């Protein structure tokens, strides 16, 4: 296990992504709402660069009384990482696929210290 320097705090803009090459492994470090998340940049579907797509809130169907469909809405509390190749979606918080819990992204621990951001690889 080694701490790999990603950046000085603030170097990745809010909403931005830095893809780093740590030996053989490509890791996407995502900054969202001031927090950092690090995942292997490899999608379990067909191997796409999963961290290089967009982040989007999950979508909810709003169903009213009696099962009546009212509308859809974004769930701002549940941001998804969207793979750019075919749009498989993963929860930003834990990297678990939104359709099948058995599919997940490889997560790396992020450490913030002394004004810099590191990941534990």
């Amino acid at each position, binding site marked *: 296990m080694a*701490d790999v320097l*990603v950046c000085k705090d603030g170097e990745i803009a809010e909403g931005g992504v830095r893809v780093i090459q740590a030996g053989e492994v490509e890791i996407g470090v995502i900054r969202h709402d001031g927090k950092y998340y690090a995942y292997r940049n490899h999608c379990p579907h067909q191997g796409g660069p999963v961290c290089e797509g967009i982040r989007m809130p999950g979508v909810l169907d709003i169903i009213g009384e009696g099962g009546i469909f009212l509308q859809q809405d974004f769930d701002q509390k549940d941001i998804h990482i969207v793979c750019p190749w075919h*749009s498989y979606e993963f929860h930003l918080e834990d990297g678990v696929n939104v359709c099948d819990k058995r599919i997940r992204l490889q997560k790396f621990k992020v450490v913030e210290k002394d004004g810099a951001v590191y990941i534990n690889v």
Partner: protein
Amino acid sequence: MDTVNFRDLSVAETDTKTMLAHADQQSVQRRYEDFLIVDVDGHHYENMSYAEIFEYIEDPVMRQQAKYQGYGGGGIASATSGGGYQNLGGRVTRNPRVNAEVTPKDTHRDITLTKRWMDAMGIDIVCLFPTPMLTLSLTPRPEVEVALARAYNSWLCDKVLSAESRICSTLYLPLNDPEATYKMVKDFAGRKGVVGFTVVSPHYKAVYDNAYMKTYALLEEANLPLVFHGAYAWGGDQSLQLCNKFMAVHALGFAWFNILHMTNWLCNGLPERFPKLRVAWVESGLAWVPFLMQRLDNEWMMRSSEVPLLKRKPSDYMREMFYSSQPMEMVNNREALELTFKMINAETQLMYSSDYPHWDMDLPSTIYDLPFLSEPAKRNILGGNARRFFNLEPVVSELKAKRLAARASS
């Protein structure tokens, strides 16, 4: 503390090679340079070239209309498939970004962009199809279908196929006009890169109409195959209009029109009337084939008197036809997929297709990584079967040739 290489996406240039860097890694790891890969269904966005294509419209009045009004959305093709939001609200990023991609001036942009994604995936030869024109057959103006089909085919031959040996095509047939369909084959068979002809499946003409028989005979005589390319009709189809989600209309539509035409093809004995005409069914995935085989065999045993031309079960004829692989149904169904491969004689009848750059594209690894296929079967499906089906001269990509040379000298 380690130091690392990095790139910040916010400042990265839009470039197909970067977007597909992981596909390139797969190509290197699996040594795709060791064998030919043919993609029997790749696409381009011909709408980026409308200005050039419209110049090829022979009728000067229609040409002026097209240049003034454009193609769909109020343009001269009027009603086409009706809507669609394939890029999922921006979730699939490659298509909106491609407009910003820089290409050299001395090569047609379609050739450069197509070769970039082919090289990244390890593909040597692609059979190229249009995008919006896949539903041109739904226009209420048959003369517009004919004019645009001729313009597109001429443009493609002149600007793309004649200039690049790794790109071939099966040209568009304007089925709403049987005479124009026949003339299309007469006029374009033999042009460089023309390896067959395409029926775009969403249309409302019956494939058994006697008016098409001379076209089938001509194709058979010319040893050129016929390809049915799936697509959807939304606004103009009363059944599919009941779908309110693109996922629904796409899942059904792309399979439905090929199910319909395959059924009519068999129930009218066309494989017996044109036994040497090679036929392929493209972009409907594979799961529909076992369904239809079982259903038609069951009915035929009871109603063979209705279709006396068929000498064997419908599934026997279906096993002799060809299929493209994408979008291959691969979620949680390895056994079903393996059985499907057996039922369609995949080792000799299945042809890999990417459908790139569309949203549900498949990489060659979707075939190469299947654990139940032998190495020769993989190579057949990834290239050998297509080479046989289209009578292709193998052309190896420059990149793969370089990799082979580097391996030989090391």
